[in-house]
């Protein structure tokens, strides 16, 4: 069985067509998710609580939205006649024409009225930034319940409250209450993120930007009074750019529907679950206490769904970035190419210790060793890990990779780069071209801080994830291989 039998990334459009809205979800659900397009791709946006005071979230939201010439912005605030070059309206009902999305950024005690005004004006999609609801205690919870009631009674769609907002990078729609100078947004790309925490998402997005990895959507769930992870995941099925979803959750809203949404999801989902420990201790267990707490159950069910579990924020970033690689592995044979012997040996150790089931540092056949020997200086021993030594050149890397690719001996390439006198940034282009030509999934590590910034970004632009440590690179590679292996097995099972 080869993993390429199922080319997950070969024709994303086709796969999406078959997997989006599988038969068990009915037409109505499909329509409901489709309708979220107005919320996430609006053309007309009203901002209730727009402000001239740059310290207020409403001001930053207007500023972020203003930068998109395709969006018609209607600031709403009775205090102003105009704001940032736009006419400012006293009430939402004063706005002429249809509004796709209303953003509410007013103090919590004014939110209920604002929502009711929007409903009266026929607005169907709301983003409630305001905080001060269930997250602050009983009084907030009561307000939130009232809000929830009016929302569900009127069948409108709401993201929030208490959310950072959302970003649709490909269409340049940025509805986040932090300015672009406060944190750097990633370029358009194939990672999407759904998060129940704003700060975790800010860090994640800036990390993506720093690593040169692109973003499609960020969706901040906040307190989830209407749109939850279930709707967000379903919506992202319809996004043509998304190829991996990073998910941060503290609680599941509707476990059964979450299960159904994740089952046969077209893309890898990397989940970081917060609140594992306290939930574990609160969990009801058998009187013997032997069966284990809720995280153990969640872990098992996630494994059943082939979701990738991250145990901390670093793993969330590393594993998510791994799935930017567009080629599924053809098998479990790994070749390690390095110009630092020690790093290569550690990589081989870690692969065997941690990922023995998924990956094998392949023993090179003698015919390949001979060919390899003929391409390299005599002082290099032609075995795997291939140590090109500190005398390595761009040409060494490229010729070795190309030769191994031609011999079909390398299912996964793990390479490491340590600075020397001969290598330069052109090696990136070269490695990328060979891997693209032979569709080899490639992962790298660059430990030297002075090299990292430049190389990691350059490789990222070629969809090759590179990590700042051998260990992180090995774990990301193993996670990538495992997901594809399980996915392939699942599909083989379904066909049988």
């Amino acid at each position: 069985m080869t993993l390429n039998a199922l080319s997950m990334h070969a024709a994303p459009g086709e796969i999406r067509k078959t997997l989006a809205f599988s038969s068990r979800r009915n037409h109505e659900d499909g329509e409901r998710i489709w309708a979220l397009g107005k919320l996430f791709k609006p053309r007309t946006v009203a901002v209730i609580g727009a402000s001239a005071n740059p310290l207020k979230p409403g001001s930053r939201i207007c500023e972020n939205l203003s930068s998109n010439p395709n969006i018609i912005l209607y600031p709403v605030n009775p205090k102003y006649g105009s704001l940032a070059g736009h006419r400012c309206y006293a009430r939402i009902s004063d706005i002429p024409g249809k509004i796709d999305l209303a953003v509410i950024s007013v103090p919590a005690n004014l939110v209920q009225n604002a929502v009711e005004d929007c409903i009266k004006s026929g607005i169907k999609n709301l983003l409630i930034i305001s905080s001060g609801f269930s997250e602050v205690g009983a009084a907030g919870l009561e307000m939130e319940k009232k809000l929830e009631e009016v929302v569900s009674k009127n069948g409108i769609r709401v993201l929030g409250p208490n959310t950072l907002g959302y970003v649709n990078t490909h269409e340049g729609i940025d509805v986040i209450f932090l300015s672009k100078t406060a944190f750097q947004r990633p370029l358009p790309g194939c990672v999407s993120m759904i998060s129940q925490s704003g700060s975790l998402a800010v860090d994640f997005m800036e990390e993506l930007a720093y690593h040169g990895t692109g973003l499609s959507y960020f969706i901040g769930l906040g307190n989830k009074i209407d749109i939850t992870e279930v709707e967000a995941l379903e919506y992202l099925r319809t996004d043509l750019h998304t190829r991996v979803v990073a998910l941060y959750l503290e609680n599941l809203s509707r476990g059964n529907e979450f299960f159904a949404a994740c089952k046969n999801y077209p893309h890898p989902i990397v989940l970081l679950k917060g609140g594992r420990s306290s939930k574990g201790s609160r969990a009801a267990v058998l009187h013997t206490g032997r069966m284990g707490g809720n995280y153990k159950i969640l872990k098992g069910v996630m494994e059943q769904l082939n979701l990738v579990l991250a145990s901390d924020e670093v793993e969330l970033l590393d594993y998510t970035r791994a799935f930017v690689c567009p080629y599924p592995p053809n098998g479990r044979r790994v070749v390690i190419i390095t110009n630092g012997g020690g790093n290569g040996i550690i990589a081989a150790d870690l692969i065997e210790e941690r990922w023995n089931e998924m990956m094998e540092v392949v023993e090179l056949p003698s015919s390949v060793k001979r060919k390899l020997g003929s391409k390299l200086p005599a002082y290099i021993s032609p075995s795997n890990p291939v140590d090109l030594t500190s005398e390595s050149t761009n040409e060494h890397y490229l010729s070795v990779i190309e030769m191994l690719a031609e011999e079909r001996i390398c299912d996964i390439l793990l390479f490491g780069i340590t600075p020397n006198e001969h290598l330069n940034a052109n090696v990136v282009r070269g490695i990328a071209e060979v891997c693209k030509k032979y569709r080899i999934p490639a992962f790298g590590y660059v430990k030297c801080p002075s090299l990292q910034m430049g190389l990691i970004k350059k490789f990222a632009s070629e969809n090759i994830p590179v990590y700042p440590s051998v260990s992180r690179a090995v774990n990301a590679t193993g996670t990538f291989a495992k997901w594809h292996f399980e996915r392939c097995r699942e599909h083989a099972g379904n066909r049988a």
Partner: protein
Amino acid sequence: MLETEHEVKQLLENYGIKRPEYWIVPQSEFSDIQGILPPEKRFVLKVLDANIKHKSEIGALVVDVSRDDVGRVLENLRCRFGEKPVLIEEYIPHSIEFILGAKKDEDFEGVVGFGGGGFLTELYGDIVFRKMPLTREEIVKMVNSTRISAVFKGFRNLNYDYEPVIKAVLGIQRIFDEKGAVISELEINPLIISDSEPVALDAKIILNK
């Protein structure tokens, strides 16, 4: 509220999970029991009381008793635990114990758990969970996610068959499917494999409050 072990095992037996051959001895018949028991076998004696949770720890469970010793052990149990009926079961020698359980989870509703039983459960927490229902293939995958699964793959020359475990899990699923409205948790520990059949050596159920 807990059902007695005897009742739980009866229920399991109706769903394909066997129990050891057994005799229930009311107080009045303690003296007659020895004549009924087969002489070549060895026995396990348990006080039937749903309120006793850790029977072995307080001596309400005695294992590997010969027929000749049964009378003496019964007398001893009566002295310590009073007029309670005693469950006598055939003692089945075995090396590997599993745990199999199911419960209603707040997020995923019916979930099933499988792993290494007996002290392995406590020592290593070697148990994995899945949301029910599972297909046969998914059950095998669940089993293979545990460390104890080595005994299905030749560890120490042990080559257990998956079939009895599949049968037991399917049985548990059917119980939750049909009686899920009243059962909140169910645990078989230890579950053993004997003569290619799943056998529950101990089992507990917690009914919905």
